[in-house]
C-alpha cells in the first residue's frame, strides 16, 4: 500500500508491505527500511528500524484542524497529512509570499482592536488586528507587505478559528 505523506513542507512517498510477525518492508522515497512496528495504545507506535533496532516511540494523532495529523517523537511534534488531505494551518507567522494574503484567526476569541484601515499600506510583520483569547491580547501580524484590501471585523467581533479577519494584496 502506498501513501503520500506531506510532512515538514516535503511530500514523501511511503510504500508499505507486510512481511511477518509485526515486521514491514517500508520504502521511503525509494529507500528501503526494515521496520518492526508495534501498536502502543490508540495512537502510539513503537518502531524498531533495521538491524541496529533504532528505537523510537511515535504518536500519530488527529490534529486540531481537519485532516491534519500530529506526529510526535523525541519531544517534538510536527504536522502531517496523508494522501493530500491537507488543510494547511492558519498562522501569524505564515511568512511572505506573493499575491493576496489573509490574516486568519488562529483560535476563537474577541477582536479588541483593528490597527489598520482599508487602503493602508502595511509592512511585513506589522501588527494589524489584536484578538483577545484566554485572557491575553494577541497581536496578529501582516504575513507580507502590501495594501489592506478589506477588513471583515470590528472591535468586539467574536471570531471562530479560521475566520478571515482581513485581506492584504
Amino acid at each position, binding site marked *: *500500500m*502506498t*501513501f*503520500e*505523506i506531506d*510532512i*515538514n513542507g516535503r511530500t*514523501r512517498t*511511503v510504500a*508499505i508491505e507486510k512481511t511477518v510477525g509485526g515486521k*514491514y518492508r*517500508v520504502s*521511503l522515497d525509494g529507500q528501503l*527500511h526494515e*521496520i518492526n*512496528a508495534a501498536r502502543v*495504545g*490508540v*495512537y*502510539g*507506535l513503537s*518502531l524498531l*528500524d533495521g538491524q541496529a533496532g*533504532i528505537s*523510537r516511540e*511515535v*504518536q*500519530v*494523532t*488527529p*490534529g*486540531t484542524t481537519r485532516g491534519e*495529523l*500530529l*506526529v*510526535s*517523537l*523525541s*519531544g*517534538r*511534534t*510536527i504536522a*502531517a497529512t*496523508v*494522501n493530500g488531505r491537507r488543510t494547511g494551518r492558519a*498562522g*501569524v*507567522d505564515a511568512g511572505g509570499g506573493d499575491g493576496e494574503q489573509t490574516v486568519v484567526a*488562529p*483560535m*476563537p*476569541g474577541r477582536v*479588541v*482592536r483593528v490597527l489598520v484601515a482599508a487602503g493602508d499600506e502595511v509592512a511585513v510583520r506589522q501588527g494589524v488586528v489584536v484578538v*483577545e*483569547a*484566554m*485572557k*491575553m*491580547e494577541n497581536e496578529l501580524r501582516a504575513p507580507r507587505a502590501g495594501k489592506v484590501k478589506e477588513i471583515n471585523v470590528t472591535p468586539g467581533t467574536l471570531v471562530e478559528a479560521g475566520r478571515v479577519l482581513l485581506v492584504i494584496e
Partner: protein
Amino acid sequence: MKILIANRGEIAVRIIRACREMEIPAVAVYSDCDRDARHVREADQAVHIGPSPAAQSYLRIEGIIEAARRTGADAIHPGYGFLAENAVFARACRDAGLTFIGPSPEAIGLMGSKTAAREAAIRAGVPVVPGLEQPFAADASAAEIAAAGAGVGYPLVVKAVAGGGGKGMRTVEKPEELLPAIRTARSEAGSAFGDSAVYLERRIINPRHIEIQLLGDHHGTVIPFVERECSIQRRHQKVVEESPSIAVDPGLRRRIAAAAASVARSVGYTNAGTIEFLLDESGAFYFLEMNTRLQVEHPVTEMVTSVDLVQWQIRIVRGERLDIDPERALSPHGHAIECRIYAEDPDLGFMPSPGLVRGLRPASGPGIRDDGGVGVGYTVPVFYDSLIAKLVAWGGSRPEAVSRMRRALREYQVLGIRTTIPFFLWLMRQPEYSAGEYDTTYLDRLLASRRESFNELDADDEDLAAIAAGLDAYLRASAAAAGQGTPESAALWKHAARREALRG
C-alpha cells in the same frame, strides 16, 4: 474541616492533594466546560457554579459561597488567579462564617494595590523602584502623561495598579511610545482585573526577578524562604522558575529575606505570600510588589526546603504555630527548576492551542514532580489561562536539575494539542540558560531574532516520522478492512484504496 476549592486546573488538583494527605474532604466547583475536568473527578464532592465564562462561574462570589453552604464546607481555598487576591471575596467569606485560606481582607486590599504596597515597603525601609506614587486619573491629559513620563525617565514600565501575571504591563523605550502603551495597558487591565488604572515605574537595566516566599502565622511569626529566580519571562509572563538563584549568595539571600520579612511584618501579614524584587547587576535590590496568595511556582520552594506550603496554609488558618526552623527555610537542599507547560503553539508565536487531549503521559522517575491539571479526554477550553501542567525537576546541583529537566521534557507526552514542551527542550539547550547568564529581558531578545521552528527534527527522526504516519494509515486501513475500524479509519481506508487504484 471541609475545604471548598474556588479554582480549577492544576492548582485545584494540587490543593486536593494536600487535603487528601491531611484527610480533609475537598469540594470542587466547576463551570459548564469543566464538568469532566480532572479537579472535579479527583475531589470528594463537586458543585456546578455556572456557564463557562469565568465572570459567570469562577469569579462569581455569591455562587461560590452558596456552593460552600450547600456542601457544608467551612473553609475556602482560592488558589491563585480568579478570586485569590480579591479583598471583597475574602470579606464575603468572613461575613458568611467561612474561613478564607489566605491573608486577611485588609492585607489583600492594602498589598493588592501596587501603589499602596510601594508605600508600605518605603515605610518598612525597603528600597523600591523609582516611579509614580499615584496612578493616572482616567481623564489625564496627554500633556500630564508626557510630563509624568519625563519625570520618571526612560526606559520605563507602564503597570496596572491591580496587575499581576504580566497583564496590563508595557515597557516603553521612547516618549512617543508612552500614550499607545498606556492605552493598551488600560484596556488589558480593564478586561483582566476590572480596574484600568495604571502608573509608571522606571525600568531597571538588565534586572533579575528574585522573589521571597513567606509564611506568617496568627502568633506573630513570619518565616521567609530561600529565594526563587523567575527571570525567564516571555512578555512579562514567567515561564521557568528555579530555586535557589545562581545570582544570590548566602549573604545577599539573608538581606533580601530580611527585607521581605520586614515588609510582611509591618502590615501584619498572615498565611502564604510572596514579595517580588528586581535585582540589578550591582547586587542592589528593589521591592516590586507583593502577591497575597499561593504562587504558581511554589513547588520549586517545596522541592528545595521539603516544606509543604499548601498544608501550612491550612495549618495556619487552624491556628497552628509555624514551627519551621528559619535556618532550614533559608538553606536550600539541591536545586529545583519548574517549566510551565502551556497549551500554546510555540511555532505560532505562542498562540493558545485549545483542544481535545487525546493522550497524556507525564514524566516521572528520579527527581521529577508533575503538577498536572488535565486528563485524557478533556478538552482544554478557550475560556481560561492555558497552563495545563507544571513540570518540576530536582537535582543535587543546578546542572543536575537541568539534565533531569531535559530528560523529563522528552518523556512528557501530551497528544492532540500543541504545547510549549518543544520550546523548553530548546531553551534548556541554550548556553546562556545552562550558564545561568540571563535577566528578565533575555528570553524576549532571544525569541525576537528567532525564526526557526521549535519542532525541528533531525533527518533520521524526520524519516521515521514519515514512516510512522504511513504505518499508522496502513494499520488503520487494515483494521477497517478487517471490520474493526472506526468511521474515521474507514474513510482513510477508502481514500487509500482509491489512491491505490489510481496508481494501478
